[in-house]
Every structure is written in structure tokens, then in C-alpha cells.
């Protein structure tokens, strides 16, 4: 068996930064105040509006304190740079360092969004080209880069759908159809747009069938929202027929593009009848997830939805790039300025380094890796859908449950063995789901090491279930009590706690 990396590491304890605070200690280096300026300044503050608490919630610490504190905290984290992070649906692939350097270039980082367009042509060109690249990859007529994350892209996309119906049919329609395998953001984004969510079930083979859609489809349906490949890692093979059914009743087809990593250069949603899709640049285009963000969720649309894109859109005329705000049918604005530009720079850099053949290769190897892991583990873990998967595979704890070992235990035990756990208990249609997305940046050795860890756990579940159920054992903290946290929430620190 291949070696697993998990051991007990060196773990330093660290209190809250506030507990390091000592009056008189400072961590800043700022110009000394000019006394005459200070006088002009203070004489103008309306006294009743002046802050009086001395900002005493901020710690007084030296730079050494700050750097040690956060360096210690960082050592309690597991990132993609620590090892394999097969968190399904999140595409935790390696994040290139050149992209980090690119976003930090002063010509990008120090560029103010309201600087004259004529002096920001480089940034506008980058955005324009990224719009074009994404349109080509997805098979769309136009792209907005404005949304800050996938869910924000969904909200934007469904808003455009709503604007389209209002404009073309004189009313927004009432419902959005969503399959039971969908991510929670899909129903939430639809509901925020005032739509009633109609959930339909996928077939026994894990994909959506035309009959189901035909039954649910009527002229009150604004859109069908599906994810392709879906969250079981399966390609929605009836998508073209489904698109036909939806379009026939005047509805639109929304595709959640969180799983585009499987399709790069192989197939394009726009060619399958999809009218609108959000890309997740932090997944497919390798920008770091940042412990929760920032992401970027550009939306691609077909011709019918182009008039409704949020403003501004970057356009190109002659040798000039321009921010076009003059779009009377636009849904409006989803946030300030133009989107998460720093994330766009990273994705653009990645796209150029990979090139078309490299991107296609990435999709192929992502799919190869997922199928390999599935194949190596299906003897040890229940595999609910026995067919070729795309970029991820879903297993369950059915075989381990007999010994009282559940998905959560398997996940925690994986931590001991040196891996980040997969996504667990999602999708909801599989009881005790473990959704494994290795991504293309994992080598055969790394997959084998993960397989060894999973096999060891399957064995332990039979021979020593206690060690799995009480995992993790190697971390600084053992399993944390989530019920306690929710019962009496303590969400901020105060001196008296």
C-alpha cells in the first residue's frame, strides 16, 4: 500500500489576538502628525458625532505579535498546498503562483476603478478578453464578469431570466424547476428572485429524464435550472431534449456551471441549448478559495439574454476598450464597480498559460482521476451509481454503517491520515454521501495514497470501529461540539468571557 502522510505534527497553541494586547504596544508605522493640520482637522468635527470609545476593541500589539499570531493560526489549516483536498463540487485544484504574482502587480492592484478609461486600457483589455475567452469556452454570445461568486452569478442569471420574461411575455412567470440533486444555492437564488421552486427528482440512473421535465413544464415556468455535470458527477445526457421541452413552453434553461472543469474543450453548454450559465473562476480557473472567498462568478448568456446583462459591459471599438453603461434593458447592478478584478487577473493568467490544448487536457485528467479513484474504491465503499463519472464520484457509508461507522467518522479519520475530507452528506439524494473530486492536479502517487487511506479506514471500520468513530486523533483539537456552539452562540470576544 502507498504511504499516507498523516502524523502528529508540531502544534503551537495560540490565544486570541485580543489576549496578546498590551497598552503601549504598537504595530504601525505612520507619518507623524503635522500639528497645524491636526488643529484644522479637529476644530471641524461636530462634537456630538465624535467617537469616544478609544477604539478599545482593537488590540495593541507589535508587528511581531501579529505575524506570530497569524502564522501559528495558519499552521492549524489544511490547504491545497498542504495536500490533496478532494472536496467535491469545489474543484480544489492547485493554484498557480504566477497568478498570485500577476494580481499583485502594481499596475493592477493600485488601479482605481474610477480612473479615466483612457488610462486603464490594460485592465479593460484584460476584462474584455476574459469575457471573450469564457464565451468561447461555454459557447455563449456574451459574458458579464460582475458577480462575485457562483451564487451571485446564479442570482444575476435568474434576474436576467426574470427581466426577459417581463420584457417578452409581459410578466415574470412564477416558477423555477430544480432537480433534487441541485446545490442549495440554486433554490435560494430562485427564491430571492421571487420564484416558487418546483423540485423534481432525477431518475434511478442519477440523471434527469425528459418525461419528468415534460410533466412539470408549463407556461408559468420561467426556467429550469440544472447542473451539468450534475452533483453526482454524472453528465446530464438528455440535456438537449430537455432544453427543447423547456424552450417549447417559452422557458429558459439555466445551467449551474460549478462543474465546468469536466467539460473544458470537450463540450459547451451553449451548444446544448443552455441559455445562461455561471462560471466559478475560483473552481474551474484555479483561483485560490481564500478560506471561503473571494470567488468570481461570471455569467455567460445566449443572444436572447444579452440585452439584460448587468452594467457595465466591457466593449471594444477601434483600438479602444470602453465601459458600456448605456444598456436600457439591463437588470442593473449586482454590486459596486465591475466585479472581482483581482480574481479575473488570476483566471486570465491561468487560461493563457494553459492554452486551449492544456485546458482540454485538464478536463480529461480530472475525469481520469475521478474514475480511477472510483474504480479503486468501489470494492470497499458503496457506489450508488455504477457508471462512468465525470470530474467527481459519489460514494456512501452504506457498507460501514453496519459497524456503526458513518460518513462523518470516515471524514474525520481521513484527517488523521493526512487528507482533507471530501464533501459529505451532499448531494442529498445519496444517504451518507461522500463526494470525491480529486482534480487533475493530483498525481497517480497522490491518488494511490488517498486510496490507501480510504482502504485503511474501511478495514478499521470492521476491525476497530472505535478508532474511526473517535477520530481525529492527530489534530490539535478533537471533534468540536457544534450543538454547543449553536445553543448559546458566542460570536464575538469580550474581556469578560
Amino acid at each position, binding site marked *: 500500500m502507498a504511504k499516507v502522510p498523516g502524523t502528529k505534527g508540531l502544534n503551537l497553541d495560540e490565544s486570541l489576538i485580543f489576549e496578546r494586547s498590551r497598552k503601549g504596544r504598537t504595530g*504601525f508605522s505612520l507619518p507623524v502628525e503635522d500639528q497645524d493640520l491636526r488643529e484644522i482637522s479637529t476644530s471641524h468635527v461636530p462634537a456630538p458625532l465624535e467617537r469616544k470609545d478609544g477604539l478599545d476593541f482593537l488590540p495593541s500589539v507589535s508587528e511581531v505579535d501579529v505575524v506570530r499570531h*497569524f502564522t501559528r493560526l495558519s499552521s492549524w489549516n489544511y490547504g491545497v*498546498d498542504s495536500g490533496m483536498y478532494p472536496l467535491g463540487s469545489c474543484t480544489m485544484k492547485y493554484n498557480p503562483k504566477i497568478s498570485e504574482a500577476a494580481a499583485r502587480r502594481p499596475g493592477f492592484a493600485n488601479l482605481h476603478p474610477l*480612473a479615466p478609461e483612457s488610462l486603464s486600457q490594460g485592465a479593460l483589455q484584460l476584462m474584455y478578453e476574459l469575457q471573450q475567452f469564457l464565451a468561447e469556452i461555454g459557447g455563449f454570445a456574451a459574458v458579464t464578469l460582475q458577480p462575485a461568486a457562483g451564487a451571485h452569478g446564479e442570482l444575476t442569471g435568474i434576474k436576467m431570466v426574470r427581466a426577459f420574461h417581463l420584457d417578452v411575455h409581459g410578466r415574470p412567470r412564477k416558477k423555477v424547476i430544480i432537480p433534487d440533486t441541485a446545490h442549495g444555492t440554486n433554490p435560494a437564488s430562485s427564491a430571492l428572485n421571487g420564484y416558487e421552486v418546483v423540485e423534481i427528482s432525477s431518475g434511478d440512473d442519477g440523471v434527469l429524464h425528459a418525461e419528468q421535465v415534460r410533466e412539470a413544464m408549463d407556461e408559468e415556468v420561467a426556467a429550469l435550472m440544472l447542473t451539468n455535470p450534475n452533483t453526482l458527477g454524472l453528465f446530464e445526457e438528455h440535456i438537449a431534449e430537455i432544453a427543447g421541452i423547456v424552450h417549447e413552453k417559452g422557458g429558459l434553461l439555466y445551467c449551474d456551471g460549478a462543474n465546468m472543469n469536466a467539460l473544458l474543450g*470537450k463540450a459547451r453548454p451553449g451548444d446544448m441549448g443552455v441559455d445562461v450559465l455561471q462560471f466559478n473562476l475560483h473552481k474551474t480557473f484555479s483561483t485560490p478559495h481564500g478560506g471561503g472567498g473571494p470567488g468570481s462568478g461570471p455569467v455567460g448568456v445566449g443572444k436572447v439574454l444579452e440585452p439584460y446583462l448587468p452594467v457595465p459591459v466591457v466593449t471594444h471599438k477601434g483600438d479602444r476598450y470602453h465601459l458600456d453603461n448605456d444598456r436600457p434593458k439591463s437588470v442593473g447592478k449586482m454590486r459596486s464597480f465591475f466585479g472581482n478584478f483581482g480574481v479575473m487577473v488570476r483566471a486570465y493568467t491561468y487560461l493563457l498559460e494553459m492554452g486551449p490544448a492544456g485546458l482540454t487536457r485538464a478536463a480529461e485528467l480530472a475525469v481520469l482521476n475521478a474514475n480511477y479513484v472510483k474504480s479503486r474504491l468501489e470494492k470497499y465503499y458503496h457506489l450508488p451509481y455504477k457508471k462512468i463519472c465525470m470530474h467527481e464520484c459519489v460514494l456512501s457509508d452504506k457498507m460501514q454503517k453496519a459497524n456503526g461507522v458513518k460518513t462523518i467518522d470516515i471524514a474525520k479519520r481521513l484527517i488523521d491520515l493526512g487528507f482533507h475530507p471530501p464533501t459529505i452528506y451532499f448531494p442529498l439524494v445519496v444517504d451518507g454521501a461522500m463526494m470525491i473530486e480529486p482534480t487533475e492536479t493530483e498525481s*497517480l502517487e497522490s491518488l494511490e495514497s488517498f486510496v490507501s487511506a480510504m482502504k485503511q479506514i474501511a478495514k478499521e471500520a470492521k476491525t476497530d470501529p472505535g478508532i474511526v468513530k473517535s477520530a481525529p486523533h492527530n489534530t490539535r*483539537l478533537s471533534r468540536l461540539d457544534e450543538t454547543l456552539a449553536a445553543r448559546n452562540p458566542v460570536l464575538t470576544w469580550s474581556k469578560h468571557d
Partner: protein
Amino acid sequence: MRYLPHTTQDISIMLHELGFEGIEDLFAGIPHSLMLQRDLHLPGPMSEPELNRHLENLEKANPAASCISFLGAGAYSHAVPAAVDAIVSRSEFSTAYTPYQPEVSQGTLQSIFEFQTVTAGLLGMDVANASMYDGASAAAEAVLMAKRVRRNITRIVLSAGLLPEVGRTIETYVSALDLEIIEAPLSGEGILDLGALSAALDKDTALVVQTPNFLGCIEDMRSLAGLAGEKNAFFISFTAEPYSLAVLEPPGSFGVDVATAEGQAFGNPVSFGGPYLGLFATSKKYVRRMPGRLVGLTRDGAGKQGFVLTLATREQHIRRARATSNICSNEGLCALASLVHLCCLGPEGLARAARISRANAEYLKAGIAEIPGFSIPYKASTFNEFVVETPVPANDLVQESTRHGILPGVPLNRLKNGNENRLLICTSELHTRQDLDNLIRVLKQRGA
């Protein structure tokens, strides 16, 4: 390809395991008619040196980035200690995701807990979440929350002093709800007209106010709070320039229901508009109605202190269509940058930076007011941003000043259609006395 570790031999071993001849076989699940029959039309691949050259060329086409800048209007430059980037560059932070598995995410979780503490403190509120996409979307989510908390709300009153982009974002977010949106006008002083506002408010309204407003003017929050209280309106504040919180009483002390802000100025570069982060804080009684992630204190099996994501039953992955918000990924790393930045500054540093920013604005204001043809149209007090009436279109001034390497401000009509002879000028502790004098000198050349 350096990010793809597979050797030809690895691939054949793997295909053999799967019983396939070639990788194409793995795509058999996609109907042939849906497969792309050509290569993508994209540039690349580029080697690292080629790519760096290309990026350098794009960078050079952004000369605005190296000007001395007096631009603000929702994006602010301040002095950021190098320690901030050193910490956020640690890939243990940057390459992790949402801390779903707390035992391998305590670094992220504890830092979010500290961020929530600092954010709540700054805004003078009980609780804050782990960040929203940006200030504008945070304000919009506050309006959605108002409607959840008080079903009777039928009207949203937006201060005319809100950054136009923020108002527009709110309008877009609520477009599917049946809500009337009205704008409360400003007086000639540059702050909200209390009489007009009073007429617009009642118990069925939510009020959104920005202070300092987008003209830079400090609103009379005490009177506004009095009005909102008297009319029992749901009161939401928005802060565009969070350094102002160092010198002004926080929104919490005026009894707002939700305080929102753009947090970019704390440790995040202006970066052509993003990524930034929205600050969102409210009072304890609304905790379960809040959007966004929350981190709470707990204990592990051995009783040791630790942190977890909590109150998740509000969120989309549990509550789906009935979630308080659809937000999933937020702006985690930007929030970390803000936290590290604020820890470095501490109470003294933040206050000093804020005072210098303000003093620089006052110095400029006085200097510019003396130039024939220029004047200061609004009399209300300001923090670090103020409007100047210019003798020629502000846009012309911008074009001319850039020839001297100065971006003198944002023409107001770039933000909102209207008077083209108005320029919004913003200062910070980054400006030296010489920068200020240079701006005055350049403007003087255009004086009447």
C-alpha cells in the same frame, strides 16, 4: 504542463485499471452530437517569461495606477503594512476553502471569529458576520433582511447621499419584491433634508443612510436616529469609507438595526474594483435572521476552546429556498487582510491615519477655496472627501492633471448625471504636504 503531473506511463496504468483504451472512452457519457468537434479558439499556451511580458504590457497600459491619486468614491487607498500581504499570501490560508471541517480549519475559523469581533466593535453592534461580497451587496442584503424581519415593510427610503452604485445595487436586488423605492433628497448643505425625510418615513418603511455620504458630508446621525425611532422605521446604515469610523461615533450608538460598510480600505488594494468585502453587523435579536456565515466559540471533546461555523440552519445548504440568503462563498481572504491590517494599526494607528486623512482634506479644502473660480459648494462637515465646484468641466481638469501625474478626483457626473463642474476629492495619510500643494498648484493653473 507543470500543473498536470501525469506521465504517459501513469495514464496507461490508470486506463488499464479502468479497462479503457483511451481517455476519450471516459467521455462516452456525453452524446456525440454534443461534443465539441474542434479545438477551442483561445490564445496560449504561454511560458512563464512570455506570460510575464504580456502582463507587463497590460500593466503599462494602466498609467493611472502610478499617478498620485485623489480618487475615492467607494474605493480608498491607505497605508497598508507589508505584514498584511505576508500573512494573506500564506497558502495555508489562501488555498483552503470554507471551514466545513473545523479540525483542519481552526486557523481560518479563529481568524473569522476575531474578524467578527473587530467588525462588531467598529460598527458598534452586537454581532457581525464573516463578510459579504462588497459594501453595496451588504447594504442590499440588509434591505432584504429588513423585509424578512418586518413583513409589513412596503417602502424603501434611500438617502440621495448613498453612492449611486449602492442605491442601484439595492434596487436591483429587490426588483422581484413588491417594494416601492423612494429617494430622500439632500438639502443645500449637502446632508439629508430632515423635513422631506420625515414625510417619507413611517412604520412600513426601511431607511438606508450613508455617512459620510457620497459628497463626503457627515450626516446628522443623531437627528436621523431620532426621526427613524419616532416613526418606527427600520434603520440601516452604510459606510463607504470605514476609516471614518475611527473618528465618528459608530452607527450602533445611533440605534441602527443593521450597520453595513465597504471594508476594502482596511488592508485591501483598490484593484480596479475588487475583490472587496462587505461588513454586515446587527443586534443580537436579529442573529437568526442574518445572511452569511457565522463562526462561534465552542469546545472539543477534551474541553479545549475551538471554533466552528454555526447557526447554519439559516443558510442555503440546509434551508435551500427558505434560506436567509443564497450566499455561499464570501470574501474570506479579504476579511483576513482587514483583520491583520487592523491588528497592525491598533487603536492608535487607526485613529492617527484617520486624523491625518481628515486633516489633509481640510488643508486642501482651504487651499482650493482660495483659488479664484473654485469654491466649496456644501457647508456640512466632511471627513476625508469633499466636493469642489470647478470653473471648467471637472473632466477637463482630470485630463489636464493626469499630464502632471495627478488624478485630482472623481468628476461627480461620472457617478451620477448632473452638474459637470463638480469634482470629488479624497485624501489619506498617504499624501504628503507636497502632494497636496502640487494639486493646489495644478488646479490654480485653471483658476479664473
